[in-house]
């Protein structure tokens, strides 16, 4: 089965971020192509997801190399083989600072068409610099996207064409797009990209094996817009989100009624809206924190891709929501499938990240003269020494640069996981009456909501009593202690075919399973 | 039917009795029981014999017949007492006087013994035969007539020459014979007033001198015969005259057998010869085996204290020298069956010396397992330990008379001190000669036997 996911706009990128972490936990399909669509190339969220995607792919390729480091096919860590274009983001409108007028070639339009454009768009809208996105103007976005061609030569669209061609050869293909129903890029991209895909499918005469799914994010956050210096500026106004949503829902209602574009749609939202502390119109300063509802969209996508998910002939619309109370619990997180329990996998990933970041990673970091003090310990002998030993030099080379790089990459990734989840936990309920304590994070992190670039600061080192809090790390869960982790890494069976650092990484990951 | 039942009952009783006897017999190993004949030897001499009374007629004896103002003179009274006793203990009493020779006296002359005239030398000095007391002659007579009782009243001052060479032999020879025949010699010393001349005092120069300033001096009554008669005479004199002045009376009994009796013969050994605490030990019993050997049976632990004590009064003939040295003969058997009915055989142990014997002032104590302590034995075994107590050597009595004795080497100096109370020349030496003979004739005698039969538990 081939799987494709497209995250549209900032929300799509953020959902993709959640999805990548879920894939690293083993919740994803065997393979997945990921792409993003955003006119705001420098968008902070898109950039963050791009970096994360790159890290994921890099780590995975390093740790699933049959010759050097191999987690083995049985490992769930970085299970999903995620691929992407060299530039994972597709800009609908290329060029420096494009405006709508330029995109639609307003000047050469027939007068009657010009008149139509003038009715539909304000002068400001026609002149808006679109390099930082469509500023919550789906009308602009739709026009801009429709004006571009779905060129098969385009790296982004070539993947879609390949996907449809693969379906024609009999292979199961599933494409999923995520965006917000409000805002700019997402609101405009979702239906138009979906329709475009459907069009290509029909052009290629592909009637089976191809399925399209989508996740629509209803409003789930808001922010305060500062009054000064905003005159004349187009920007997304939170108070307009609900109206936009209402209008959009009416549109989709009609669309789904008369035109089966999607096989499955996952709809979710949030109430009360999460209050984001910062407002940025676009660019790299628009770096919103990960929020819980985005995880719903990500899990919806993973559910769509799951082999246990039987796609019906009829279009299905799924609503995902939490319990009615103010407390957000693990039970509010839906499972990807009967065999993929989201909580278990995500908890495992978080424990792994904790253990690696503070317990084992530091032991493996540094030169051999620093590391060798562990060389007589069973876990080291079994998992590291044997698998990084060079018979030619008759020495353990874990202290060498090529191994250290991987160790460092993984530590970095683990910090990303901890930051992601902690940020989501803090930011989702900040300034609301809601409470989210899915994990205990106070003891290892500090939250600064106004520090856009680094809202969550992870402690570099933990003392003994802080480390002991590991067994309370995951709330509403049976306690797994660091002792159990140590026990497990000593006894877990090494899969056949595991090599190099893949041995240790996978064993540690599996040892964090409840 | 009745007959059959009776027979069955009889068989059962016999079997039980046999079993019981057998069980009891198994509790004691097989050993030789040394039964003593001592008490038979120490039987009362019921038969009376003759009594010979010898009066020392030497001139120096005259001083005992003349009163010394301020001094008590018992010589006459004692002579009377001896006459009386002699008449009572003997069938016939023959009186003799002796100096350098022995001559018979008539009964009428006996009364003169109490007068100074008896001791005067009538006739020339050459014909006087009473300047010298030849005690050896009396011993010769005693040897010849062993069944008689011989009583000698003398000053007992003997020259060195009388205790050397042939003169000594003349004493020791008959004495050996006398003692071997079970007879004894009692020496009764009486410190009496003296008013006369003590002659034949030897000087270093080889000459002799006299001393006339003595106011008191001992005389002696030697009694040679059986112990009963000796004791009778001694008691008579002591009770009559010395009940309040014991310092003027001395007595020693020279005998080949100072042992009074064997304690087993009449079952005189009692439970309390062992510490009283022993009777409180587990499984304690005290019984006589074969009506002869007392056996203390108990369960012991390694700290059990076992001391066997016998009073001297039960062993020594009163007044005798007693026993100077005791010994014990020990034998031990072991078995690993502690219940008597399970014992099939005993094994003789070879532990060597096990206990020690200690002679105290008035008793002897056998410290059982003093040398081979109980700590060194093995628990869980039953031990049978038999002890025979022997008298090895008789005691000596010279010390009894040392206060009244002076040697020839010291007499000159002693005399020069002008003593009021004079001592007897070579008295200690004389008694020592007698003791030596008695020691030579003494036979190792079994005094008592006993056994302990114990199981050594914790």
């Amino acid at each position, binding site marked *: 089965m081939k799987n494709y996911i497209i995250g549209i706009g900032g929300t799509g990128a953020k959902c993709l971020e959640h999805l990548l972490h879920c894939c690293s936990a083993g919740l994803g399909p065997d393979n997945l192509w990921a792409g993003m669509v955003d006119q705001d190339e420098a968008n902070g969220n898109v950039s963050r997801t791009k970096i994360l995607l790159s890290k994921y792919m890099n780590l995975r390729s390093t740790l699933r190399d049959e010759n050097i480091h191999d987690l083995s096919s049985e490992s769930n860590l970085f299970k999903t083989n995620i691929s992407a274009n060299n530039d994972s983001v597709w800009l609908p409108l290329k060029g420096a600072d494009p405006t709508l007028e330029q995109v639609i070639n307003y000047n050469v339009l027939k007068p009657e068409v010009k008149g139509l454009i003038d009715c539909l768009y304000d002068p400001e809208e026609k002149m808006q610099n679109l390099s930082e996105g469509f500023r919550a103007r789906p009308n602009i976005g739709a026009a801009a996207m429709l004006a571009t061609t779905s060129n098969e030569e385009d790296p982004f669209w070539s993947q879609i064409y390949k996907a449809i061609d693969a379906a024609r050869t009999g292979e199961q293909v599933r494409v999923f797009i995520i965006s917000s129903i409000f805002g700019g890029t997402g609101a405009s991209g979702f239906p138009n990209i979906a329709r475009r895909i459907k069009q290509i499918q029909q052009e290629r005469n592909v009637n089976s094996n191809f399925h399209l799914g989508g996740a629509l994010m209803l409003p789930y956050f808001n922010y305060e817009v500062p009054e000064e210096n905003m005159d004349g500026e187009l920007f997304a106004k939170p108070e307009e989100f609900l109206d936009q949503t209402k209008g959009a829902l009416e549109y989709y209602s009609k669309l789904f009624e008369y035109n089966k574009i999607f096989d499955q749609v996952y709809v979710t939202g949030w109430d009360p809206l999460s209050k984001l502390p910062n407002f940025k119109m676009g660019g790299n300063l628009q770096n919103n924190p990960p929020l819980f509802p985005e995880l719903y969209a990500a899990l919806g996508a993973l559910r769509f891709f799951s082999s246990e998910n039987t796609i019906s002939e009829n279009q299905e619309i799924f609503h995902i929501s939490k319990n009615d109370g103010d407390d957000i619990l693990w039970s509010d997180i839906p499972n990807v499938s009967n065999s993929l329990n989201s909580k278990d996998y995500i908890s495992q990933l978080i424990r792994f990240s904790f253990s690696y970041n503070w317990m084992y990673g530091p032991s493996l970091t540094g030169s051999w003269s620093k590391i060798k003090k562990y060389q007589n310990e069973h*876990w080291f002998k079994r998992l590291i020494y044997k698998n990084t030993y060079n018979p030619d030099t008759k020495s353990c080379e874990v202290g060498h640069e090529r191994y250290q790089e991987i160790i460092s990459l993984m530590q970095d990734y683990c910090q990303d996981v901890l930051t992601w989840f902690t940020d989501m936990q803090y930011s989702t309920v900040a300034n609301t009456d809601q409470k989210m304590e899915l994990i205990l994070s106070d003891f290892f992190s500090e939250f600064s909501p106004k520090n856009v670039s680094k809202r969550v600061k992870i402690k570099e080192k933990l003392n003994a009593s802080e480390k002991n809090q590991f067994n309370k790390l995951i709330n509403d869960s049976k306690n797994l202690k660091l002792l159990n982790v140590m026990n497990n890494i000593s006894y877990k069976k090494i899969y056949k075919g595991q090599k190099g650092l893949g041995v240790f990484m996978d064993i540690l990951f599996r040892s964090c399973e409840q | 039917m009745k007959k059959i039942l009776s027979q069955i009952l009889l068989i059962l009783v016999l079997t039980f009795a046999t079993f019981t006897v057998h069980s009891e017999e198994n509790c004691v190993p097989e050993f030789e029981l040394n039964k003593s004949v001592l008490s038979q030897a120490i039987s009362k001499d019921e038969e009376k014999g003759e009594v010979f009374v010898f009066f020392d007629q030497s001139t120096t004896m005259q001083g005992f017949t003349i009163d010394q103002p301020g001094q008590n003179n018992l010589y006459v009274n004692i002579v009377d007492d001896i006459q009386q006793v002699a008449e009572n203990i003997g069938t016939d009493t023959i009186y003799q006087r002796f100096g350098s020779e022995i001559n018979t006296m008539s009964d009428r002359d006996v009364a003169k013994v109490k007068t100074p005239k008896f001791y005067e030398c009538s006739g020339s000095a050459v014909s006087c035969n009473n300047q010298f007391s030849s005690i050896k002659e009396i011993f010769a007579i005693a040897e010849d007539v062993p069944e008689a009782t011989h009583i000698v009243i003398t000053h007992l001052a003997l020259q060195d020459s009388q205790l050397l060479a042939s003169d000594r032999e003349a004493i020791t020879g008959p004495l050996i014979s006398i003692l071997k025949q079970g007879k004894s010699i009692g020496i009764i010393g009486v410190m009496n007033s003296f008013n006369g001349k003590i002659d034949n005092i030897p000087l270093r120069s080889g000459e002799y001198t006299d001393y006339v300033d003595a106011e008191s001096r001992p005389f002696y009554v030697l009694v040679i015969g059986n112990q009963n008669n000796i004791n009778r005479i001694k008691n008579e004199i002591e009770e009559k005259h010395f009940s309040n002045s014991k310092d003027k009376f001395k007595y020693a009994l020279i005998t080949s057998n100072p042992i009074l009796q064997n304690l087993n013969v009449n079952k005189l050994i009692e439970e309390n010869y062992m510490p009283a605490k022993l009777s409180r030990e587990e499984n304690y019993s005290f019984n006589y085996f074969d009506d002869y050997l007392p056996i203390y049976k108990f369960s012991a632990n390694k700290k059990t204290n076992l001391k066997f004590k016998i009073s001297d009064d039960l062993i020594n003939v009163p007044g005798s020298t007693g026993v100077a040295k005791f010994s014990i003969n020990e034998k031990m058997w072991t078995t690993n069956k502690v219940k008597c009915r399970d014992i099939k055989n005993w094994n003789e142990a070879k532990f060597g010396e096990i206990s020690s014997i200690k002679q105290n002032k008035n008793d002897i104590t056998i410290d059982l397992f003093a040398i081979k302590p109980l700590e060194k034995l*093995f628990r869980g075994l039953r031990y049978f330990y038999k002890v025979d107590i022997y008298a090895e050597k008789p005691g000596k009595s010279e010390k009894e008379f040392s206060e009244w004795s002076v040697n020839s080497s010291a007499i000159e100096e002693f005399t020069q001190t002008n003593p009021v109370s004079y001592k007897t020349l070579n008295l200690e030496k004389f008694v020592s000669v007698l003791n030596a003979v008695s020691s030579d004739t003494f036979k190792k005698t079994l005094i008592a036997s006993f056994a302990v039969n114990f199981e050594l538990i914790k």
Partner: protein
Amino acid sequence: MSMKNIFRSVLLSVIGLSLLGWVSFSFTALNALGPDGDSNLLQWYFDNLVQSEEITASGMPWEDLAVSLYNLLTQMTTVLLSISVVAALIWSVASHFLNIDSPGKAKFYFIYWLIFTGIFMAAIVGIVFWFTKSAAFNAADYLSGSGVTTISAISFIYYFLVYYLGILLGTARFARSSILFGNKLPASDLL
């Protein structure tokens, strides 16, 4: 704590104990049968363990007295082996519960092992003492000073080795650095 891992430790511990423990078992069985007149063991006891002169002097045949000594040794070796087995198994199970939750922490638990082993060795000494020196057994009286020393030394060394092999194999893998030379064991999946 994974019960499977604990059972595995117990099994390995039993294997380790068996490596030398069978000797004790055989010895106990031999003693339980009692003395045999022609036995070399009986003679060896006489020559090396007991106060042979005293026994000879007692007049008792050695074969008769030896019954209780055999009984003493049977019971003593049974108790010693049992204590060794129990101690090794306790350590093997308990090692899974030592709070070794991070790299480099195992070696600090060496002191725990030392104390535990010290208590075990004290128990061995105490047991040997009780059997050979106290009033509990009559047969202890037969033993000479050098015999007691021999028994003590052999017991001390032998049962320590039995216990040690038991814990060497039975200690939880992650706790091996807490026991002497435990980290020398290869990181094999069999161990």
